[in-house]
C-alpha cells in the first residue's frame, strides 16, 4: 500500500518545482467508494491526494485530452511540465503515446505508483449499492477492506478486483521519474484464454453476441474520449464532408463505429480497460481490443507501450514480417 504521507510530501515537492505546472492525481469522490481525478496546482491542494484500490482512472488520458487554446498575442505558451500519477498499466499508455511522438518526454513528469491491483467499481457498486457516505477501500493482504459511515467489511480481493488486474504483468510502472514505493513483483500472467474461448465460437454465434451489445450503444463516445490512445486532433467521426461515418445511431453505424475504433487501436491498445469501464451500457469492448492484442502479439511478437525505443507497429515494415494471413 502506498503511504499517503509520503505521497503527499512528494506531490508537494513536485508541484513546488518551477518547471511543473500541474499535478494530476486522485482525491476522494463525492459519494460511496469513488475517487476522482485531482488537478493540483499548488502545494496546499496536495493534502487531499490519495491512492487506493479505488483509483481506477487512467490519468494518462488527461495528457492528451488537454485543450490547447490559441495563445493570446503577447503571451508565451506555458511549456512547464505536467506531473501525472500512473499505475503500471497506465504507464504503458504514456510509453505508447511517446512512441507515437504525441509529445516530447520532457513535457511530463511521471510519478510511478507500484500497484497491487484496483477494484472493478461496478462490482463494488453491486455489492454495496447503498453506500452514500464517502468510503475508503484498502488492500490488506488478500482482503479488501471497505469502510464507510463507521462500518467496516472485509471481502476477498478476487471478488472485487478488476479483470485486468487478475492478469497484470506490469504492476510496476514501466516509465517513471519518481517511484512512490518499492517495485511490485509481477503477480499474474496473461494467457489470453478468454480470447481463445471467443475464437472457438461460430461466426453466427459471435455476431448474435455483438449484435445485442452494439444495438444498445448510445454513441456517447465515452469509450473514445476516455481512451489514452484516442487522441487524433481530427477524428474521423467528426468529418462531415465527406461523412466517413454517419451520425445516425443504429446497429449498422454502431457496428462500424466500434469496429473502426478497434482497428485504430490494433497494435496500440495498452489494455488499461478504461473503454469498457466507462461504458454506461456495459459493452465489453476489451473483448475486441484483446483479440487484436493477441493477434499482434502472435503475429509480430509486439506489445504496445512497453518500450519507448520501439517504433509503433503499424509504422514499421520488416522483410521477414509475416504475411501468410493476408493472402
Amino acid at each position, binding site marked *: 500500500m502506498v503511504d499517503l504521507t509520503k505521497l503527499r510530501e512528494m506531490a508537494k515537492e513536485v508541484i513546488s518545482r518551477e518547471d511543473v505546472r500541474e499535478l494530476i492525481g486522485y482525491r476522494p*469522490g*463525492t*459519494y*460511496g467508494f*469513488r*475517487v*476522482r*481525478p485531482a*488537478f493540483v496546482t499548488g502545494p496546499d491542494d496536495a493534502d487531499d491526494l490519495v491512492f487506493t484500490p479505488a483509483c481506477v*482512472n487512467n490519468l494518462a*488520458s*488527461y495528457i492528451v*485530452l488537454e*485543450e490547447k*487554446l490559441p495563445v493570446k498575442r503577447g503571451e508565451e505558451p506555458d511549456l512547464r511540465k505536467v506531473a501525472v500519477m500512473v499505475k503500471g498499466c497506465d504507464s504503458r499508455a504514456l510509453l505508447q503515446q511517446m512512441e507515437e511522438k504525441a509529445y516530447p518526454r520532457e513535457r511530463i513528469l511521471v510519478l510511478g505508483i507500484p500497484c497491487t491491483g484496483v477494484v472493478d467499481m461496478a462490482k463494488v457498486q453491486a455489492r454495496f*449499492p*447503498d*453506500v*452514500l457516505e464517502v468510503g475508503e477501500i484498502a488492500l490488506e493482504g488478500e482482503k479488501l477492506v471497505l469502510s464507510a459511515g463507521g462500518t467496516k467489511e472485509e471481502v476477498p480481493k478476487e471478488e472485487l478486483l478488476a479483470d485486468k488486474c487478475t492478469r497484470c504483468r506490469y504492476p510496476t510502472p514501466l516509465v517513471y521519474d519518481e517511484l512512490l514505493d518499492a517495485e511490485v513483483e509481477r503477480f499474474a500472467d496473461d494467457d489470453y484464454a478468454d480470447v481463445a474461448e471467443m475464437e472457438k465460437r461460430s461466426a453466427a454465434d459471435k455476431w448474435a453476441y455483438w449484435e*445485442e*451489445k452494439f*444495438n*444498445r450503444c*448510445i*454513441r*456517447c*463516445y*465515452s469509450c*473514445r*474520449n*476516455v481512451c489514452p490512445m484516442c487522441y487524433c486532433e481530427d477524428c474521423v467521426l*467528426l468529418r*462531415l464532408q465527406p*461523412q466517413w461515418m*454517419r*451520425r*445516425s*445511431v*443504429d446497429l449498422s453505424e454502431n457496428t462500424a463505429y466500434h469496429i473502426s475504433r478497434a482497428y485504430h487501436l490494433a497494435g496500440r491498445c495498452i489494455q488499461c480497460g*478504461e473503454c469498457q*469501464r*466507462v461504458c*454506461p*451500457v*456495459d459493452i465489453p469492448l476489451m473483448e475486441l481490443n484483446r483479440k487484436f492484442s493477441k493477434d499482434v502479439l502472435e503475429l509480430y511478437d509486439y506489445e504496445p507501450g512497453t518500450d519507448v525505443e520501439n517504433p509503433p507497429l503499424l509504422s514499421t515494415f520488416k522483410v521477414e514480417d509475416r504475411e501468410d494471413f493476408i493472402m
Partner: protein
Amino acid sequence: MAVKKLSKEKLGEALGELSKFRLIAPAKSDDVVVFKQIGDAGEAFLGYGNSTVPPKKFAFPQTETLFRFVVGNPELNEKNVEEEGTTVIFGLRPCDARAMAIVDKLFSWDFEDPYYLKRRELTTLVGMACVEPPSVNCFCASVGGNPFGTEGLDMLLTDMGDYYLVQELTDKGKKLAETLSAQLEDAAADDEKKAEQMALDAKGKIRRSIDTAGIPEKLPDLWENELWKKVSAACLGCGICTYLCPTCHCFDIQDEVEEMGEGRRCRMWDSCMFGEYTVHASGHNPRPTRKERTRNRINHKYSYYPEHFEVIACVGCGRCINLCPVNIDILDILDQVVDAS
C-alpha cells in the same frame, strides 16, 4: 378519476392486452435495463430500479428521419409520425415522466415541433411509483418531483405487494383502463390511504438533496467564476451525462446518403459536452473548452430553462451522477454554486 387494482397474476395478461399498441417497457439486454418495444409480456422486466437509458427516445428518437429525397426528383418523401401508431410506455419512473412534461414546454414553445408533439399525442404514459428510491443519488424531491409524482403521467401503478394500485390520471389513462377492464378490479377502500403513506415513506428514504432556492437567479452572476474551471477539470467531454439525461433535448440536423442518389434528412441527439457542438461555420467555437460546456450544461438546466419556462430542467434521477466515469457530480457543482461569491 377512478382508482383500481391489478393483481400481479394478471399482469402478464394486461401486458398482452396492451401489446396491441406499440408497447414499450423496461427489458433486459444482458444485465442492462433499457426501455424497448416488447412483443410478449414475458420480455418486460419489472424488477428494476431505473433504466440505464431513460425512455425519452420514444418521444424524441435518438435518430429521426424527417424526410427522404432522391436526386433529380423535387418530391420529398415526408415522415408521417402517425404510422408509428398508438404507443404505451409502461413502467417508467415518475421522474422520467415529469421530464417529458418539462421537455414538452420546449417543443411547443416558439415553434411547435410537429414530430415530437404528434408522438406525444399518440403516447400514453403508465408510471411505476418508486416505493424505494432506485439509487443513492436520487434527488427528485429537491427539484419539484416526488417518488409517487404524477406529473406527465396518464396512469400510475404502485406496487402494493400482491397487486398494483392503479390510478387513472388523465383521459388517456381512463381510456387505457377501459382497455384493461377485464384485468382491473375495484381497489379496497383504504388502498389510497395506504399508498399516500407509502409515498411519504418513499420521500423520506431519498438520500441526497439540494436547496435550489436562489440558484437560477445566482447563476448569471457566476459566469466568469473560477468554479467552472474546477468542476470541469476532470471532464472527458463524453455524452453520458446528457444522453442519459431525461430532460436533455439538444439535437443536430444532418443529411445522410443512403444509396447512390438517395438520401435522407434526419435529426439526432446532440450533446453540449461534445467539442463540435455549436461550432460556427467560420471555425469559431463560442464554447471552446470543457469549462464553457460544463457551464452550459448547468446553466441550461438551472438558469435558462427556469427563466423561460419557470421550471428547473432537472428531475433528480441521478443518472448523470451514477454513470459519470470521472465522478463529476451535479449536486457537488450546485453546492459550489451556492457557496460561490
